């Protein structure tokens, strides 16, 4: 799986449901995180949270759209949950593909396969209004800031490679811990992808705001892809379905529905 995902041989292989290389024949087995967060996976019920089967949330909705495109009915889609390590460990997988905002990088392609990107995001800075970083307008303003990010995200790469602050970024397992550090005033702000930024400022961390959005162009674009076991021939068919969705405008519609951007944010570029 060193090259393009298409080397599974998608062109030659039939993409009929019966011919697909599936973990459970006839069923599309999709993995996501435990728990999965809005706005990527939401739920219809009270807490609006973590119910992929409801098809609410961007990634959940995307999966059902892809499944339909590939010829699966909704009840032919089953969800499994994986931790980070299970998803990337070598050996057989218990899912056909896994999606939880995995950024596509070259190094990762060595051990797993990614689909074509299904979303490209910008990074955003979240902080309390009275913090040291509120009101910054240039990357240079952030040089002496103490910033945090979640491990394994391109947000972290962005802080390190693009902002490159004087004190190394604090790295957290989860945004929950990052939030606690913010509340403990151990860091000035956290960098997350924009959709997540919207969600956590609105729901999770009372009183925070999106201080700024970073222009995508200034960093390597952060592209999310579906993750497959290394060498999985399914990639080709999924990519086909994905490009159909993109061509038809269905993908953009899903983005609009779930990943609302309010606009009017301060934008910082290099």
């Amino acid at each position, binding site marked *: 799986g060193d090259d393009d995902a298409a080397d599974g041989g998608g062109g030659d292989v039939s993409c009929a449901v019966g011919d697909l290389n599936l973990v459970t024949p006839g069923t599309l087995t999709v993995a996501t995180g435990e728990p999965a967060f809005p706005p990527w996976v939401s739920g219809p019920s009270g807490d609006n949270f973590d119910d992929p089967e409801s098809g609410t949330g961007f990634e959940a909705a995307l999966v059902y759209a892809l499944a339909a495109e590939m010829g699966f009915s909704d009840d032919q889609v089953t969800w499994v949950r994986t*931790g980070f390590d*299970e998803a990337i460990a070598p050996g057989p997988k218990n899912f056909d593909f896994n999606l939880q905002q995995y950024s596509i990088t070259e190094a990762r392609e060595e051990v797993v396969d990614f689909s074509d990107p299904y979303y490209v995001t910008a990074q955003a800075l979240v902080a309390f209004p009275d913090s040291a970083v509120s009101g910054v307008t240039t990357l240079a303003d952030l040089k002496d800031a103490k910033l945090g990010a979640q491990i394994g995200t391109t947000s972290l790469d962005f802080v390190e490679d693009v902002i490159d602050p004087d004190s190394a970024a604090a790295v957290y397992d989860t945004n929950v811990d990052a939030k606690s550090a913010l*509340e403990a005033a151990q860091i000035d702000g956290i960098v997350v992808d924009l959709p997540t930024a919207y969600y956590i400022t609105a729901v999770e961390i009372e009183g925070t705001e999106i201080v700024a959005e970073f222009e995508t162009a200034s960093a390597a674009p952060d592209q999310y892809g579906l993750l497959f076991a290394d060498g999985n021939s399914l990639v080709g068919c999924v990519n086909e379905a994905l490009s159909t969705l993109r061509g038809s405008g269905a993908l953009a519609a899903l983005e609009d529905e779930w990943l609302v951007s309010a606009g009017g944010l301060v934008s910082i570029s290099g």
Partner: protein
Amino acid sequence: MNPTPIEKVERRGPQALWPRRSPHTREEGARGALIAATSTVIVLGLILFVVLNSAAWPKVQRQFFSWFHFKESFPKVASGFWLDIQMFLVAEVLILAIALVVAMIRALRGPAFLPLRIIVVTYIDLIRGIPILLLILLMGFGIPSLQLPGVPRSPLFWGVAALVISYSAYTAEVYRAGIESVHESQRMSARSIGLTQGQALRHVIVPQAVRNVIPALLNGFVSLQKDVALVFVLGVREGLREADIYNARTFNYTSYIAAAVLFLLVSVPVARFTDWYTERDRRRKQAMSS
């Protein structure tokens, strides 16, 4: 170098002399001990007072000590905890047995046993140096992905195996401390009645050694109880993992408190029972005197 005179002794009539219930209870430093205990309690109380009255306490309380979230998370955490207990029991039995064998091999004397001793020391040094998480990942993901025929693939199996391998190395060293604390003359006495090295270890040295290190063994016991949770990286949903999930979902840490309460419910009684038991045993077997 004149001996200090006895202070504050009153003459008493012999009728005051018996019966006495707790003779010479006044130990040196008795007042100091009372002062120390009282001031500890006062200081802790003060800290508690300051914390509880700080402006930000309600927020911290909500995030770490919320009764609501405790009740919410408890059932899930408890159900995962049951798996922890099972893993723990299986692992602990294996660890105590394997570590004992390892420690006994290490304690063998004589050049004939050198190769075995080298193997055992290498094992202990190497395994203790490796972060246990890495061992769990390596065995839990690495071995099944080799897809060797006849080799189990269950992450639970390999996770517990990794814990056993790692903890056995630590526990073997605890046993060794015990073995070395048994006086050499015991080994000699045992050999002199014709026991082999192995028999001497088994019947004479090890039983005394184990008694000598029970608190340290219990340490391993208590920390294994918590470390079984590490198999969560393999995707196993045990108690701490459930607490994690709850925490990630709600951004509230109280679920960890629920997990801690469960751990305490097991570990404290075990520790108290062990202390009571060893103390009783000690009294039965060893007089206060030479």
